[in-house]
């Protein structure tokens, strides 16, 4: 099997002439039939076009033509007439279908003919900069005289005044609107008085806690607009999600006209689901996804196809980049053909990668989800996903990166050993048939709502029975009055505190404080990267190999308080992988009730994420060549949770052994989490689940086989003494600092949740368990005498109210 080094094995498949996705898909299917569990084609479609509208200003028409735009796609024309009729519009079309022209046309027209202003909101600075670059090009092409600026944290102070006064189009992000623009709206008075359009792109990213915050920022925006006597029209854009119109309407709390049919032509898209081959039949071990991804990407690039690889973690981006660079960039005198792209690079470096991709000088790019959004990198031929991104919607957004007008494209999903990935490649119908997920928000979540009423009261006093969103504000203002930040006089509530409330409210609810990576190689002191706070513990521990464009640096010292990691250039043949885990401890139980033979509780919990050490993994062979300890503060989260427990005697009677009970609890937790997420309209990442001992002595995580593995407080696998107390507990907790109050409504609906979980599992068509009920299971478990599904049902049955 290993006669030929992997690196050369597949060169016979290289297409001699630059070719299309179909040919490559065929060759791969033929050669690797056993690895491909499913191949299907999403048929392309002819473009549907419309002439440039007659009512465009002639200079704009001229500018478009000089940029090679002689006609519109049908959805662009639809968007034009919808905006001209005054409707709020939501445009939901795939990546690279010319979405931005849908809002550029009405915005520029209004700016040229009525001096109307527009506010653009993008979720990231990079997208904002792209957009401004595009606007400037069009503006130059036609000498349109429309001024567009980005306004973000990097905008220098002296430029801000000019932007406020002279910007026709201000391109910013929700965080800046929340913290810098709305609380200073009087400085923007001229801008607001003439504000005609608010463009919100990538609205599918505004979901969960983040989306709920953004919906409230939009409420505040509308409130400030009302003060200046304007009602701007909203134009929203979204990637494919299950409920685009609904989601857009929930965000702006108004009716929108949805445009969902793309008129952009696309070639056929060939999709392959790829399972790495079994390398050890005895243990059922498969080759790594990484090796397969590398092989497919290499073949595609050698065949002259522009290729994008998505990896799940920053480390994996660097590893895969290194492998591809080893093949394609071995000659340092030639310009690089392979690039990495991820968060944490300096903006300059990311811009350079984008530019080179667009210019076509780069043949392969390896990225995290950072490229899932609409960053413009031109057309690609092949997209390879190293592992399932976790949702159907994200998978299609990533595949959407590949596709040119006339040519067929290829998308390959390479399954990792993760049980969910394995389930998917074994059950392709799940993926093929599944509708994309729905985006959900809950703007009236009490604590989020209160935070934004607080910010709104700072911006403008509340008067009388004013509404905020769908709530009458008065009771909330009373709460703020008691807190001492508002003063009530007659029917007015005025801000009185010496504080700036928006600073204390983070829309993304992540702890702030990015880490900078300082290169100290041979006496230098250069900042070479930034790492966000949550990623720092798993990437910047002392001893970590931190790779940047696949150049390895070793972290020598981490200054946690100062948010700095000092690194030096190194030459090692391994990379490092952090071991991390989460445990949970109950601090205060607010309420308890019987739940069948067990009990349900809700209260305050302490969640700890710890990185106890890391593994050193050799490149190519991927053998584990050692461990290192990590000494970092725990990442702590105080929050609220609801949890269920069963007494030891009950479990002893119901299960043959403790392993079965643990597997049952893991499955039950999975089902409860699905049901609860829907029940409180949370994003899965905002509500988390955990299974552990009731006293916090141990917790359970699924091992590579999907089986429950007990781990001690140090995170190491442990076994319980036969006489040790055994009270497994399933927790659902708010993954939101301080909690966002999801646990109480969940506790109130506890009986309903258990009953719904039972029916979810019972109604599921699978045999032994699947991602739709108790979580993905291994093939071996599907036919086991007691399936994970049966075990989970057994646990839940014991919790059903009598």
């Amino acid at each position: 099997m290993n006669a030929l080094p992997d690196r050369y094995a597949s060169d016979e498949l290289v297409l001699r002439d630059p070719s299309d996705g179909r040919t490559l898909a065929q060759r791969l299917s033929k050669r690797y039939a056993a690895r491909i569990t499913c191949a299907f084609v999403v048929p392309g479609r002819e473009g549907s076009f419309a002439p440039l509208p007659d009512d465009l200003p002639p200079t704009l028409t001229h500018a478009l033509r000089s940029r090679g735009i002689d006609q519109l796609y049908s959805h662009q024309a639809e968007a034009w007439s919808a905006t001209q009729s005054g409707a709020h519009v939501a445009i939901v079309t795939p990546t690279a279908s010319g979405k931005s022209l849908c809002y550029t046309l009405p915005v520029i027209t209004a700016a040229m003919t009525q001096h109307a202003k527009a506010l653009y909101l993008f979720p990231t600075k990079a997208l904002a900069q792209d957009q401004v670059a595009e606007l400037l090009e069009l503006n130059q092409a036609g000498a349109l005289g429309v001024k567009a600026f980005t306004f973000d944290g990097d905008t220098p102070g002296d430029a801000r005044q000019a932007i406020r006064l002279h910007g026709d189009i201000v391109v910013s992000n929700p965080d800046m609107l929340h913290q810098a623009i709305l609380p200073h709206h009087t400085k923007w008075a001229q801008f607001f008085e003439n504000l005609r359009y608010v463009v919100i792109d990538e609205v599918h990213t505004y979901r969960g806690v983040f989306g709920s915050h953004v919906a409230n920022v939009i409420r505040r925006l509308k409130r400030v607009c009302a003060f200046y006597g304007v009602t701007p029209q909203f134009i929203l854009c979204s990637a494919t999600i299950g409920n685009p119109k609904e989601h857009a309407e929930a965000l702006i709390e108004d009716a929108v006209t949805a445009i969902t049919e793309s008129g952009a032509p696309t070639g056929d898209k060939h999709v392959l689901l790829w399972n790495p081959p079994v390398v050890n039949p005895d243990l059922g071990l498969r080759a790594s996804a990484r090796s397969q991804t590398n092989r497919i990407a290499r073949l595609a690039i050698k065949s002259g196809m522009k290729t994008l690889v998505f990896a799940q973690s920053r480390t994996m981006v660097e590893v895969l980049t290194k492998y591809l660079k080893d093949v394609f960039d071995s000659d340092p005198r030639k310009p690089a053909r392979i690039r990495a792209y991820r968060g944490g690079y300096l903006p300059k470096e990311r811009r350079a990668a984008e530019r080179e991709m667009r210019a076509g000088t780069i043949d392969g790019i390896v990225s995290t989800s950072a490229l899932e959004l609409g960053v413009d990198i031109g057309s690609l031929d092949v997209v390879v996903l190293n592992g399932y991104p976790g949702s159907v919607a994200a998978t299609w957004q990533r595949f959407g990166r590949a596709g040119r007008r006339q040519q067929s494209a290829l998308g390959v999903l390479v399954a990792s050993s993760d049980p969910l990935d394995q389930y998917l490649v074994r059950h392709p119908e799940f993926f093929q048939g599944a509708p994309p997920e729905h985006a959900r928000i809950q703007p009236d979540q009490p604590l989020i709502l209160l935070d934004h009423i607080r910010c709104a009261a700072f911006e403008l006093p509340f008067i009388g029975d004013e509404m905020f969103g769908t709530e009458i504000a008065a009771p909330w203002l009373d709460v703020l009055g008691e807190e001492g930040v508002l003063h009530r006089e007659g029917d007015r509530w005025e801000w009185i505190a010496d504080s700036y409330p928006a600073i204390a409210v983070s829309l993304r609810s992540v702890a702030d404080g990015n880490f900078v990576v300082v290169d100290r190689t041979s006496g230098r002191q250069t900042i070479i990267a930034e790492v966000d706070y949550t990623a720092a513990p798993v990437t910047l521990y002392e001893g970590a190999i931190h790779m940047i464009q696949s150049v390895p640096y070793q972290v020598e010292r981490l200054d946690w308080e100062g948010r700095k990691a000092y690194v030096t250039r190194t030459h090692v043949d391994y990379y490092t992988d952090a071991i991390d885990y989460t445990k949970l401890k109950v601090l205060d139980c607010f309420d308890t009730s019987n739940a069948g033979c067990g009990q349900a509780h809700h209260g305050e919990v302490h969640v700890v994420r710890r990185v106890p050490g890391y593994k050193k993994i050799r490149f190519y062979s991927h053998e584990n060549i050692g461990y290192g300890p990590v000494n970092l503060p725990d990442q702590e989260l105080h929050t609220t949770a609801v949890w269920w427990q069963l007494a030891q005697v009950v479990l002893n009677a119901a299960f043959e052994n403790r392993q079965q009970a643990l597997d049952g609890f893991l499955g039950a937790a999975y089902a409860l989490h699905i049901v609860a997420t829907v029940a409180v309209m949370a994003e899965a990442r905002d509500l988390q689940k955990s299974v552990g001992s009731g006293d916090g002595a141990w917790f359970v995580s699924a091992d590579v086989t999907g089986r429950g593995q007990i781990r001690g407080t140090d995170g190491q696998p442990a076994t319980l003494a036969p006489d040790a107390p055994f009270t497994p507990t399933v927790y659902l907790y708010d993954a939101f600092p301080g909690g966002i109050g999801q646990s109480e409504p969940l506790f109130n609906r506890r009986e309903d949740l258990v009953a719904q979980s039972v029916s979810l599992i019972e109604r599921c068509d699978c045999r032994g368990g699947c991602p739709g009920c108790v979580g993905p299971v291994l093939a071996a478990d599907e036919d086991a005498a007691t399936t994970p599904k049966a075990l989970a049902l057994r646990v839940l049955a014991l919790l059903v109210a009598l």
Partner: protein
Amino acid sequence: MSVAVDRLRLLRAQAGQVTIKKIVKPTMPANVRLLLQRHAQIKHGSGVATLSSRDRDMAGDEIAPGLRYTEVFMDWLQPPPWIDTTFARWIDPVHHGRLLHFDTETTGLAGGTGTRAFMIGAADWVDGRFRLRQLTITSMAAEVAMLRVFAGWLNEDTVLVSYNGKSYDAPLLSTRYRLARLQNPLQGLGHLDLLHPVRRRWKGEWNNCKLATAERQLLGVVREDDLPGSEAPAAWLTYLRGGSAANLRRVAQHNAQDLKSLAGILLHLATMSQT
């Protein structure tokens, strides 16, 4: 599906149209209120106590509901008719009759739309005498009246004199005029902000260039029983909530001294640039 969309649909069905009407929710559920209060306590400590004090006297006349006005004439410095303003890099001298020294006392330093002035002091020379006027609001509602009165003190010839007023007092007032939907009377006026020439001349020589330092160094002013500026917001808030006026009276004294020092520093700078 989000609650908002549910409501939206319901409404549209009810109204048979697409406009959104507001829904009135009478009260907040008790448990939500409890939750919010708990969180507020954890985050901000205990709430506000209701105050009631017998010492509620403020100087001056109530010229509008909640707006008190004081006016004092005093002999304070004899300005030359024409003030040399080359220290501020202005070429032409300014007649002293055009000068209006001003200083605000505010509810804080946070900035943005949530900070307001509760006291505006202004001083000028009228027929050779130093006139010091102060407006203080004792209710929120009186702010508009205060802004109007102050606007009446300014005309297009007025030259403002302040200490850091270009960056602080003037933008703050401009925000307040905007929020009150009034024309901003400061817009376009000449403005001598003395902080900048003081900084240019004495930065590095003194520990800092605060007004208190400048008045001590240049005018030999030593304040007694001065209420630090940082305590001004609390003084006004205490009074607003029914508490004692004692500290608010001290704020007025502090403000008056600021204005006197401002005039003193101006004349000092003007004299210096002549020599």
